[in-house]
């Protein structure tokens, strides 16, 4: 089940872990290099953004595989691909994903998530939206609160418990 841009969505792409690239397929880097037209590319979370970032930034979809749900390498990869290599296409997470990690992935620039079923997909949507703001700059919030006059002003009030 695919969550894209905060909604459950039809998946118009097909993941091809092996085999050749073709339009509508998300292929391995090697396959994509041979036939990039209309194809997406998937990479592992430990891929070197500095080596391939510029090259794959042209793809319509980059899917990042998380080998274990607690493996945060894909977060750095996503962040770098967006901020340093200017990737503007769909950044998708697949592999071992639990909804609670999607919050972090989302902040690192991922906008699509492959979940095992509808229930997990619904929880993912809720998890992404749960915390209303964060302390740091991220792909989603390019300025931390202390650089943002509006959020700074709102935060000025005392923190009386609600």
């Amino acid at each position, binding site marked *: 089940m695919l969550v894209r841009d905060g909604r459950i969505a039809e998946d118009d792409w097909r993941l091809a872990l092996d085999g050749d690239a073709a339009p509508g397929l998300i292929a391995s880097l090697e396959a994509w290099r041979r036939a990039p037209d209309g194809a997406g590319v998937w990479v592992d979370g*430990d891929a070197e953004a500095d080596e391939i970032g510029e090259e794959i930034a042209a793809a319509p979809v980059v899917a990042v595989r998380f080998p*274990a*749900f*607690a*493996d*945060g*390498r894909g*977060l*750095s*990869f996503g*962040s770098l691909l967006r901020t*340093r290599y200017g990737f503007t296409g769909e950044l998708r997470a697949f592999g071992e994903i*639990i909804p*609670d*990690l999607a919050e*972090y992935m989302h*902040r*690192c620039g991922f906008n699509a998530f492959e979940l095992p079923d509808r*229930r997990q997909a619904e*929880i993912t949507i*809720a*998890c992404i939206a*749960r*915390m*209303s*703001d*964060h*302390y*740091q*700059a*991220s*792909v989603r919030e*390019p*300025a*931390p*609160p*202390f*650089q943002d006059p509006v*959020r700074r002003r*709102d*935060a*000025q*009030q*005392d*923190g*009386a*418990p*609600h």
Partner: protein
Amino acid sequence: MYQYNAFDQRFVEERVEQYRDQTRRFLAGELTDDQFQQLRLRNGLYIQRLAPMLRIAVPYGLLTATQLRKLAAITRDYDKGYGHLSTRQNVQINWPELEAVPDILAELATVQMHCIQTSGSCIRNITTDQFAGVAADETVDPRPYCEIMRQWSTYHPEFDWLPRKFKIAVNAAEADRAATQVHDIGIRIRPGEDGAPVFDFLVGGGLGRTPVIGSVIREGLPEQHLLTYLEAILRVYNRYGRRDNKYKARIKILVRAMTPAKFRVKVDDEWALLKDGPSTLPAHEIERIKGCFAPPPYAALKDATAALAKDRLADPAFNTWMRNNVAPHKRPGYAIVTLSTKATGVPPGDVTDEQMEAVADWSERFGFGDVRISHEQNFVLPDVPQLRLRQLFRLACQQGLGQANAGLLTDMICCPGGDFCALANAKSIPVAEAIQRRFDDYDYQHDLGPIDLNISGCMNACGHHHVGNIGVLGVDKRGAEFYQISIGGNQADEASIGRILGPSFQRADVPDVIEKILGVYVDRRFEGEPFVQTVRRIGVDPFKERVYAKEAAVAG
């Protein structure tokens, strides 16, 4: 103290609901044990040998009286009426119900507290000098920078799923009371040439299975770059730290594999791209946070040396306590008091609800309502008028917090060990108690001078045994508990890792072994030479010879 604003308060309240939902999903079978484990650990909840253990964050060891009273109430309402002060300056409770943890978090949120990132492979509670802001030898107040880093590390989008846990310690005084050389990142703050604070960074120190002293990779970093430089280090670690073997996953292994020089280059390359970016600290933000740590309304007192001298002469117990537990304050007429939890027969760091409430009351009567927790697992009252020290001492004695042993042999660091912890190979609390019983004469201890004795129940080294002047490590030998002894470790300036004496000992023999070690020291020391210096000068062989002489019970 840092005061939450509306942003901070909303954050912890939303966090409570987030964790409540995670707990509910786990209990409903929607999260597996493994999945929930990662989530509960990031909330400080361990499933222990007997019951869950909840670790409550005490950022850089600072508490208000109100917060401490809330902790006392929580131990009474949700636990067995006591808590444990940890070596990361946090508070742990040992018997909460898993189902009740969301309610405990909600209670904590009412006093600006939480359990965020007190465990798990993420940036843990940042620790500092327990005398920060008041120490006579301090050059810069580290607390505002600790708070800036606390906020930065809280739910960092990229660095909350690291290869392994990540510990940062900060020191800004002449003496290093924060053990900066044995942390993943050690930060030393000092005034730069123009008087503005600058930061020196050590990386790759640590204890655990492979103890390492950190390497300096950057000196004199200006304050506005603090966060971007940290991001550069963390990004290198997150990408390249090993994830295939948890025993090789700490940053120290990466730094050693790359060499500190190459690690530094990698960090510098990354930092070149992050420098002056959005995480650069604006002056207004540094000022805002510093404003929360403005000095309290001190009275214009004078040092009370003469009056104290009279009291000390009249009351030998007070005199001993003054000598060991009272440190100089940067303001005249005030003093810093360490309230030792290390009473014989009480597990080091354990405090009852009643003791917590008493300390909260004293912090208001004899100060401005601030309390500290030291990484030596004691309470500290930072602003006590000198003329009220004797009164405080009497009250502390009535509450079992008047032990005059701060910094001495029986002021041990000790992990919870096999009595509570599922990871431990051996018990540590009974060893601590046996040592306390053997050496409970404060005059003898005072004659020995400062000795850090640190006990860990396993290789994970929560009791920091590697950097104890005397270290005791619980090991498992064919299902039986044994104890390996090392000497010559040091946590402060010129940090060093202790050397193992030889084969390990049975529990009952540990006090004898310690006594023999101390005997060699007393025989061989120069006048005024601390234990660790004697070990460095004469080496471990004389100690080995005495300890393993014929009748020693050696386990093989």
